[in-house]
Structures are given as structure tokens and as C-alpha cells.
């Protein structure tokens, strides 16, 4: 039976259920499980639920070493920017050890971090850094946009035999939605069609899925039928589902909260240009953040980021080009 739950609660449920299921799962991070009242600590004990110092390189490096010797660590990193001080471990250790050993070891670990905090956190705590990891074969990247996906993707991340960067969006933390009770695992590399439509395809991740769905609702009132696809994992990326949708709609809007420079949107545009060019009836449109750091003051931040209106406008422009290649 599905139960209404907050996005944040759904993640906690996934961790608790997977730790219940598999004794090899351990969970640690900074500023967590500090008192004996902590529910995870009560349930699983200090051996499997630990407090870490502010030492991302050691936290993640220890996870790598634990993973290659039989544990399945989840490292709570809180903010994706904190991963930057440990980039060697994330980009050049975790995803390399299996390959360099000729397949002798595996590295099942989860790096859990929030991203895209668009609430005045300014230049160093509001970023979307997944593009820095997309260029690293060996890593998997999951970005849930709903409470149900938050649970199902996290369960899948914990069960995966590879290093997974699990990025939850801060602005979705309090969102509620139906979440399946008990075992719920969403396979990686399977996009979810969040809304079906015929005129334009939108591909979006994280908070931008919510913005895109709101735009689609508005556009429906203008008689424009929009399909919204959430890839849910950027690595692996379900290009097939996107191409199939573009074949139907002939128009594609890529929404990404990250700056345009080497964004996930640009990568998807490249895939569609190679594999779906014949289906396009208009140029691909990109709605991304502007190429700048995230500013502090609200009007500046709003100006920089994609929003419902920018998405709607991009869709309208594509539809206006209907006559181009009918």
C-alpha cells in the first residue's frame, strides 16, 4: 500500500529498510547520530551508524576501501559541494579500482548529497555539480524528483554493485507524495514519463521536473500538449525513451538547473542530434541556468535560474516554428 510521505522521509525509509535487509550496509557522515536518541543508531547500533569528522577525503576514501572488502557504505555528505574537497576519491578512485583490477573487485557505495539549494545559499552551496561526474565511466548518478523516486532510487543505489552518487534536491525535501510501502526498487537507466503529451517533449531532472510539470499544466490551457520525461539517472542515461518521445512530438526542450556550459542538457542534446535528428521538426531548445555562479540576493538568483515561465516560453517558441518542417 502506498503511503503519503515527504521526500526526505522517503530517503530515510529506504536507508532503514536496506540496512534491515543487509547487514553489510553501513551509514555514516558528519553531524548525524550524535546522541543515543537517534532512531537509526537505536535500531542498528554504533558499529553500523557512525559519526564522521569533517573529513570528506577520508570519509569517502574509507567507503571505497570498505566497499572493495565487503561492506556497502552509505556516506551522508549533506551538500554536494562538500564532495569537491574529495574529488580524487570520487572521480579517480571509486570508479577506477574495479577496472584497474581487471574486474577483481567491486565498489558498491553510495555518496548521498543534496544539491541545488535555491534559497539564498549563494555561490558555494547552491550548485548542480552532476555534470562534473557525468564524464566519469564507472560512476552512476541518480537524481530523484519525487518522494517515490527518492525511495526507489536510493534502495537501488544501495543494492547497486557500483559507486553511486545519489543527489537529492534540497527544494524538494518537504514535498509529499505517495510512496510504496516495503521493498521498492527503481532500476537505474529507466526514465519516467511524468506526463504524456504530443506536441513537445521536455526532459528535466530534480526540481526542474516540478517546474516543467507546472509549465505543462499552463501550456495545456493554451492547447499545447507537453510530455515531461525525467531520466531519473544521468548515468546510465535512458536515451531510448527520450528518442521515442521526440519521434512522437518532433520538438525537444531540455531543462537543467545547472549552467549551460557542459550541462546534462548539452549531453542529451548531443545524443538526440546523433540518434534522433530525423525526427526533429524544430531546433532543440535549452533552458538552463545562466553561465555564472549562483548569486545571493533573491532577484539575482531568480534571474539566473530556469523557471516555469522560461520553460513555457521555450515551448511556445518551438510550437511557433511548427511550419518549419511539418
Amino acid at each position, binding site marked *: 500500500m502506498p503511503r503519503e510521505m515527504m521526500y526526505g522521509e522517503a530517503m530515510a525509509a529506504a536507508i532503514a529498510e536496506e540496512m534491515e535487509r543487509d547487514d*553489510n550496509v*553501513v551509514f555514516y557522515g558528519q553531524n548525524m547520530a550524535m546522541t543515543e536518541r537517534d532512531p537509526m543508531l537505536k535500531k542498528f547500533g554504533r*558499529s*553500523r551508524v*557512525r559519526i*564522521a*569528522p569533517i*573529513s570528506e*577525503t*577520508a*570519509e*569517502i*576514501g*574509507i*567507503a*571505497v*576501501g*570498505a*566497499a*572493495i*572488502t*565487503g*561492506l556497502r*557504505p552509505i556516506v551522508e555528505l549533506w551538500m554536494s559541494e562538500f564532495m569537491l574537497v574529495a574529488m*580524487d*576519491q570520487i572521480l*579517480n*578512485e571509486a570508479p577506477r*579500482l*574495479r*577496472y*584497474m*583490477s*581487471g*574486474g*577483481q*573487485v*567491486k*565498489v*558498491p557505495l553510495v555518496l548521498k548529497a543534496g544539491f541545488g539549494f535555491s534559497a539564498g545559499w549563494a555561490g558555494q552551496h547552491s550548485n548542480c555539480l552532476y555534470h562534473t561526474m557525468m564524464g566519469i*565511466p*564507472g560512476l*552512476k548518478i541518480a537524481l530523484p524528483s519525487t518522494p517515490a523516486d527518492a525511495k526507489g532510487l536510493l534502495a537501488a543505489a544501495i543494492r547497486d*554493485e*557500483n559507486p553511486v552518487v545519489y543527489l537529492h534536491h534540497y527544494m524538494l525535501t518537504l514535498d509529499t507524495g505517495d510512496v510504496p510501502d516495503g521493498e521498492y526498487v527503481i532500476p537505474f537507466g529507466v526514465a519516467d514519463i511524468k506526463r504524456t503529451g504530443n506536441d513537445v517533449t521536455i526532459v528535466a531532472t530534480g526540481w526542474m521536473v516540478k517546474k516543467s510539470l507546472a509549465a505543462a499544466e499552463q501550456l495545456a490551457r493554451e492547447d499545447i500538449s507537453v510530455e515531461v520525461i525525467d531520466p531519473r539517472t544521468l548515468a546510465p542515461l535512458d536515451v531510448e525513451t527520450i528518442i521515442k518521445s521526440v519521434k512522437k512530438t518532433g520538438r525537444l526542450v531540455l531543462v537543467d538547473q545547472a549552467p549551460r556550459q557542459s550541462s546534462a542538457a548539452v549531453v542529451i542534446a548531443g545524443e538526440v542530434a546523433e540518434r534522433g535528428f530525423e525526427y526533429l521538426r524544430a531546433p532543440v531548445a535549452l533552458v538552463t541556468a545562466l553561465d555564472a555562479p549562483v548569486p545571493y540576493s533573491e532577484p539575482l538568483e531568480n534571474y539566473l535560474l530556469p523557471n516555469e515561465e522560461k520553460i513555457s516560453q521555450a515551448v511556445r517558441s518551438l510550437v511557433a516554428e511548427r511550419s518549419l518542417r511539418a
Partner: protein
Amino acid sequence: MTKKKEELGSHLLGKDRLIWIYTQMARIREFEEHVKRTFLEHPGAMRGHTHLADGAEASIVGALATRSPQDFVMPTYRCHGQPIVLGTPPGRMMAELYGRKDGLCKGFGGSMHLADPARYFPGTSGIVGQSIAHAAGAALTAQVKNTGQIVYCFFGDGASKQGAFYETLNMAAVWKLPIIFILENNEYQAYTHVKLEDANAQAGEPLSKKAAAFSIPGATVDGTDPLAVYEEVAKAAERARAGLGPTLIESKFYRLSAHGNAITVPPVPTQFPEHEAIGVYGNKSEFKAAKDNDPLVHFRSHLLQTSVLNESELKRIDDHARAEMDDAVKFALASALPSPGDATKYVYA
């Protein structure tokens, strides 16, 4: 502090164990000599960068002589010595260095990335200092699963200036992880003398002083004497097995070859240059002194003097090690190259 050799007796170890130590030291030396010769005898057989353990034999074998059969061993990219002691077939190691299909890692890793997880050697990192954290991760596994295993974490003096070192030693101390941090001070951080880059060394103090920052025991030992290393590491192993947490041991010896083979761009052939002491600093006397204190030669004389082995018995061990590594080279040369299409294998499990 550095122990005088005379204070140590062979009484700690039985005759068989002393012979075992010498045998492993001789095998490591022969392996590395064969690697070095490959650059001249089979140019092009090895690509990229190769780092040798000659000079480290006493330190490696003395430390691993305290090991129980299932303890983890986590060296750095200078990783030829430890697997030889663990029983990894040298032919498969050499084949890996030659990029062959029968290589330990099927040609995917090379000299810097040997791994033999079946023998509790789960892998290495080529990035200085980063494997210190991986080793602590193996210790976490042992602790969480309560297996009784401990971890032998080897790294160099250069690595002890990486953030990973400080972060990991702190975490290992806080979590009381069953691990021994063996800081192999071979006096050179790649090409830079330790006194030019280490605050303790510059102050004329041992690098083991760093242990005080984490409130864990620290000791400095003569890494050219396997028995001295054995004695100090045995204490640390006992502490780790008792659940009392990590120890930092500075093992002092001298790297007898250059940091690695010369970095050349193809088609210019590569080989081992002169040691930095001469090549960079022009310090011939320092290098000569180190050569005169060769740990292998030293321990050999010790065994002769204490009548553990006679000359012909020692020669038999030497000859056997040489023949074994001759065979390793033959095995590697005879092994096929990998199928190119396999290049995308092993990206994901």
C-alpha cells in the same frame, strides 16, 4: 627511536622464520632487478611508470612477518614487494607489468595497480596518499564484521603530507580501527629530499612524531633491519588485534633505485635513470653509503654470522629466487596481449 641492531636478537623468531624472511627479501630484490633489466633487454615491453621496492625489502618482509593469514595488505603504487610475500605468482605480476592477458589484472592496471584480492591485497591507488583512506576502509570492514583481521597500510614519506593521511589517521584513531600505518621513509618524496618538504625532518625529528597529533602510539624503526621492523610492527599488530586502534610506524630505509623509470615520450625508449641523490643533488657519497647499507646484503651477513645459514644454503636461496624471476619474465613474454575489444569490460560490475 631507532634501535641498535645489537639489541635485537634472532631469538624473537625461529630459524625457519628467519630463512623465510631472507627468502622473501631475495625474491623481491630479484623481481625488481628483472623489472629494471626489462627496460634494457625488452624495450617497449613496459609502458608508463614503474616504481621499484629495492631497499624496502627488510621493511616489507619484517612487517609482514607479523601478519596472520587473512590480514589485509594495502601498499601504494610502489606495489611489487608485498604481493610477492603474499604468494602472488610473480609470472602473473610480470605479465601485468608487460600489459599481457595473463597479467594479474589482465593488463588493465599495470605496474602501479596490482591487485590480488584473493590474497587479501585488494588494490592500490596511483595517487599519492589516497590509498591510506582505502586501507582504513578495509579496517572498517574487519571491525564491522568482527573478523579479527587487521590491516597493514604502507605508504611513503611523501604521502604523509597529503590531507588523506591526516584525515584518515584521525578517523582511524577516533574509530579505533585495527590498522598499522607503516610510513616508509625512504628519504625522497619522488625527487625531493624529505628535509625540503617535511617539517619534522627539517627540525631533525622523526616523522613518527606526527602520531602525537592523533594521540596514537608512534615509533621510528630501522627499516633496513627486518628484525627491528618485526619487533615494532608486532607490538602494533597486537594493539590492533586487541581493539586498541592504530599505530604509526616510521620505517627508515633508503630507496636504492630512482623514484621511477624516466618519463619519456614515445618513441624515446625509457629506462631507470640514476638515483635522485646523484642525478638531482650530485650527492654520490650519500648514495654510496646507502648501497653499503643494503638491507639484503646486511641480513645475509647476519644469517651467516649467526650460523642460521651457511654460504651454500644462502646461495641456493639466491639462485632459486633468480630462477623463479627468470621464469616470471619468460611467462610474461610468452603471454598474449589482451583482446582490444575487452577495453570496455569491467567499467561496471
